């Protein structure tokens, strides 16, 4: 309590009061808290995958083909979520799949964010010809439907996880570019920018040291949502046979492999899809909550 009472006296730029204020706005949004919990759960599973998984995810077991999960009549505790058509433990594969999907999401966000950040900050700061050139390029990329562009890129570079990451990241660049550009344009005429200019700060310094920290809020929101798009698009590529290749336990690839068994062993199809759905949902819920908490216009 005493800390709360202290707040007005403190310097208004003290970082922990910002965090506390953020948490106070974020906490009442139950959906966002659920989203954060989902993300933390998936990240922990991803980090501890080798410890948590009861079996090697690629271990073939001839004596355990397409065993049903425990809630079915013939299910056993030795394979709680059943096994697939070549006798691999599905629980272990899903746990390792979390590692792959979280890794893909992270790589996609880092790649697309850094590309989009550079393009957006230059377009927004310099305006004029630079802006027109960059935005024309972005318009062109955006004319291609995301999955169509991604599958074309993968078909050029060859299927596989790293190429799928590059393809999905390229598709996401326009979102980041537009968001960074819009916030840089709003900032660049402000007085603190003018002040640094009069002090002789270089353009690069103004862009990255002065303006960028003030544009972080929308960027963080977009990065969170970029995670969910990345996971979803990479899984779609895996499903089309263009992403991770078997026997990699990637959720989309697992779905594609299990399609022939949809009638006889439906759990092989439903479980990987639920993992995709809930990981994507977690990032979307969290991103939504972040936006509401960080966007001052929506504050009551």
């Amino acid at each position: 309590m005493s800390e709360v009472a202290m707040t007005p006296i403190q310097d208004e730029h003290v970082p922990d009061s910002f965090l506390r204020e953020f948490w106070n706005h974020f906490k009442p949004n139950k959906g966002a808290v659920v989203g954060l919990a989902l993300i933390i759960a998936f990240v922990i599973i991803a980090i501890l995958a080798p410890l948590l998984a009861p079996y090697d995810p690629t271990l073939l077991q001839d004596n355990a083909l397409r065993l049903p999960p425990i809630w079915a009549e013939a299910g056993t505790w030795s394979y709680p979520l059943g096994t697939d058509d070549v006798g691999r433990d599905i629980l272990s594969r899903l746990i390792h799949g979390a590692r792959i999907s979280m890794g893909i999401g992270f790589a996609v966000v880092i790649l697309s964010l850094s590309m989009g950040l550079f393009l957006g900050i230059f377009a927004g700061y310099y305006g004029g010809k630079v802006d027109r050139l960059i935005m024309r390029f972005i318009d062109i990329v955006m004319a291609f439907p995301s999955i169509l562009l991604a599958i074309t890129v993968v078909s050029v570079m060859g299927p596989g996880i790293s190429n799928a990451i590059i393809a999905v990241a390229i598709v996401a660049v326009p979102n980041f570019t537009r968001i960074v550009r819009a916030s840089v344009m709003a900032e660049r005429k402000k007085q603190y920018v003018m002040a640094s200019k009069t002090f002789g700060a270089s353009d690069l310094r103004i862009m990255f040291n002065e303006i960028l920290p003030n544009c972080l809020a929308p960027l963080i929101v977009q990065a969170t949502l970029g995670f969910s798009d990345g996971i979803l698009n990479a899984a779609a590529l895996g499903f089309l046979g263009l992403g991770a290749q078997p026997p990699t336990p990637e959720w989309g690839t697992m779905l594609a492999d299990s399609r022939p068994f949809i009638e006889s062993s439906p759990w092989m199809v439903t479980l990987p899809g639920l993992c995709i759905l809930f990981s994507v949902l977690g990032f979307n819920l969290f991103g939504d909550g972040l936006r509401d908490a960080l966007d001052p216009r929506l504050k009551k």
Partner: protein
Amino acid sequence: MLRFILGKLGDLVPTLIGISILSFVLVRFVPGDPVMLLLGERGADPAVYAQMKKDMGLDLPVWRQYINFATDAAQGDLGTSIISKRPVVKEFFDRFPATLELGVVALLFAIIIGIPLGIIAAVKRNSFYDYFLMGGSLLGYSMPIFWWGLVLILIFSVQLGWTPVSGRMSVMFYIEPWTGFMLIDTLTSEVRELDGLAPFWSALSHLILPAVAMGTIPLAVIARMTRSSMLEVLGEDYIRTAKAKGLSRYRTVAVHALRNALIPIVTIVGLMFGSIITGAILTETIFSWPGIGRWLVASINARDYPVIQGGVLFIATMIVIINVLVDLAYAVVNPKMRG
């Protein structure tokens, strides 16, 4: 206004040139030799190989190849499919009605359900309904539709046996294409005299699951958009005036608020064409729907490079033109945007 229209159309030219360069360059890098692909065994003969390469224009410098590609494309010639040996444009338009029919039905499904749900959520803001509907819409928005399609098949085709698993029409009927829309072509008098309504029901039952799968994400987007657009409008002065005049709550919401809230919703729907194509690629693959999405995936797997190049260029061009039309329509409705 005229200046605004001309400006928009002027912007279109460099974008279209960029699109054609990008689709040309992308496909140039597809691994595999198109000449060998076309000739097969006969390509082993160097003379035949060289002649074919010349016929295809592949012996020219790359920039000449691009000029040829672009001038042909501008005249509506996108080359010939290596697999079917038919013009790409013909192949495209053979399949386009199937995708269009699926897309239109999916969007109608999304609009008819999404707008009322969004209105309910806005009117009952912060109630249980609001949280439930918005939670549901976020779930729909997060849906991997390639999985959702399989789950729908599992429930409605495998378990309940209500709908067919895949395809567009029962093989028992032959329907002469007229509009290319099965739901319309099965209702012509000739078909009805021969088979009654059975072909229509067959077409409808094949269409329902893919349309629901494809419409789920647009439904979620439309519901959320309707909610936020309605909330904004409901706070405006003229709504307070309408209430003050003593108009019924229903009339205030359904007439005064909705009419104004619709503008951004219509824009969003107009701009959904691109995501519809994305949806079509995945949905058509799952349901073996004979449209352009499945055709493109098959062409990419078969390295049918004129089809990839032509198909991608065609779709991107359509999207750009539709986006400009939406922009123009928006400017006509809302003069504030013309600045």
